[in-house]
């Protein structure tokens, strides 16, 4: 009984986490589902977003401006990966890994800006000392300071903006690039440019998620982004599996990634209450994603066999 009660008590926090990671999942959706690229930059750019935002806030910047700078920093990270991939011909996965590794060093430096030591592995933020847009401390509050309000609005704004963008000529050319590069080039689309653009937009969103996460959780640590890509994929896949049949519109597909993230965090909260250590979560997440990625493969095998059987009986 106690466990169930504590689970319900921690639900608002899980929803808050889910909304923030939902923004990140939308970023992953753009590269993984639309561009058909697995972009590993995100493990680094999530932390970069958090680092830039946290540093600027501790230096007394306006939190909105800090958020904007975090987005720009993430976009630059995406630009680097994009150029490594297109201009330098490095396979997308490797390009992402290279940027991610480089960002590790860079993030340690960013967090030490304005500090006496050359590098720093964590930064603390507190609603008492810093002006924060979202903080998990007020997640059960009934007032306007409840972070869930702002997070829901932020997610809605991101989805609306992307829905508009992917309906434009430029956005359509990005979708065509992921769907069929040959066709896109034959129709005069510079697929290198669209890939870079997709990576820039995606990592901008991931950094935004990192910036929100740093404020919400009250700290930014160098390890924050480790395995972020897998959590993002988990959210995308959970959302797809659960809502594929009902959500056909593009905006709803993005929403399903956010819902996937929220469900992911609810499940995580539950298993933590069941006695798992938080350090076990990466194992669990990896297992969940592996299983869901394997399902289509096994489904295909299974259904092919069935079709053959049917074919024989009709022959």
């Amino acid at each position, binding site marked *: 009984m106690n466990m169930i009660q504590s689970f319900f008590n921690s639900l608002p926090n899980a929803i808050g986490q889910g909304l923030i990671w939902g923004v990140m999942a939308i970023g992953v959706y753009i590269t993984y589902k639309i561009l058909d690229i697995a972009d590993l930059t995100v493990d680094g750019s999530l932390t970069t977003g958090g680092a830039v935002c946290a540093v600027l806030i501790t230096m007394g910047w306006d939190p909105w401006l800090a958020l904007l700078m975090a987005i720009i920093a993430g976009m630059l990270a995406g630009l680097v990966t994009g150029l490594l991939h297109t201009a330098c011909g490095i396979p997308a996965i490797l390009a992402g890994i290279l940027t991610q590794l480089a960002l590790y060093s860079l993030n340690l430096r960013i967090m030490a800006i304005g500090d006496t030591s050359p590098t720093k592995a964590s930064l603390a933020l507190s609603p008492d000392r810093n002006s924060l847009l979202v903080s998990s401390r007020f997640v059960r509050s009934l007032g306007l300071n409840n972070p869930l309000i702002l997070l829901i609005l932020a997610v809605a704004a991101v989805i609306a903006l992307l829905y508009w963008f992917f309906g*434009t*000529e430029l956005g*359509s*050319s990005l979708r065509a690039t992921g769907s*069929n590069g040959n066709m896109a*080039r*034959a*129709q*005069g689309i510079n*697929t290198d440019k669209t890939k870079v653009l997709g990576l820039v937009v995606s990592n901008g969103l991931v950094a935004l998620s990192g910036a929100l996460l740093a404020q919400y959780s009250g700290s930014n640590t160098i390890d924050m982004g480790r395995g972020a890509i897998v959590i993002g994929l988990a959210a995308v896949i959970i959302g797809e599996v659960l809502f594929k049949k009902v959500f056909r519109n593009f905006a709803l597909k993005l929403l399903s990634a956010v819902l996937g993230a929220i469900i992911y965090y609810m499940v995580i909260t539950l298993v933590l209450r069941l006695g798992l250590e938080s350090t076990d979560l990466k194992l669990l997440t990896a297992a969940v994603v592996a299983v869901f990625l394997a399902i289509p493969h096994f489904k295909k095998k299974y259904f092919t066999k069935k079709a053959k059987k049917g074919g024989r009986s009709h022959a």
Partner: protein
Amino acid sequence: MLDVTGVRKTFNAGTVNEKTALRGVDLHLDDGDFVTVIGGNGAGKSTLLNAIAGVWPVDEGTISIGGVDVTHLAEHKRAKYIGRVFQDPMMGTAASMQIEENLALAARRGQRRTLKRGITARERGEYKEMLKILDLGLEDRLTTKVGLLSGGQRQALTLLMATLRRPDLLLLDEHTAALDPKTAAKVLEATERVVKKDNLTTLMITHNMRDAIDHGNRLIMMFEGKIVLDISGEDKKHLTVEDLLAKFGQTTGSTEADDKLLLG
């Protein structure tokens, strides 16, 4: 309209897989020429079309379209001048996008893609009319994902996309080879119609000698990376499959000029 001069291309140069696909190709097409291209497997037909389309850079020679030197222009920049239909029906369309979205992408070939709407209401009406002419029942399925269409439907759609903005040059790379005979005939008929209507300068590769003779005003044959036969005008009109086989034997000095060599 098209000028290909001394074009050479070798793949995997310096390796055991070295393959010289084009050994100095010269080709001039007048405005409105409809040229069919035949030749055995590995003769360099597709390589020639890909060289013109700019899929990769050529080793030597120059290519110009309508007086514009495109030799060093990237594939997507050349697309401004060229409409293409591929052998593989999967290659010419974006499967995960709707019919109207594919058409809207094609309608903007060679233009800057901006933040304007990807497709307008006026366009939708136009596409509906165009699809009606194709007579494949696609006019009522504008928002259907292209991945759900049959190979023939996809090729017909690709043809429409290639010619939606009048191209200076239309490249057809065995675009009916993957279709069943009935569908192939229908797509070929649509090709003939659209080429005639807009008086398009066209290069069409085919494996079918009959089609090569029946269509177009000029026929070229390729062998080992070179154009070995070029027949046009009255000669082309009176050409028979037997003539073609005999001519092939003379030109290449091969006594084994049989169907197999030509039809692969």
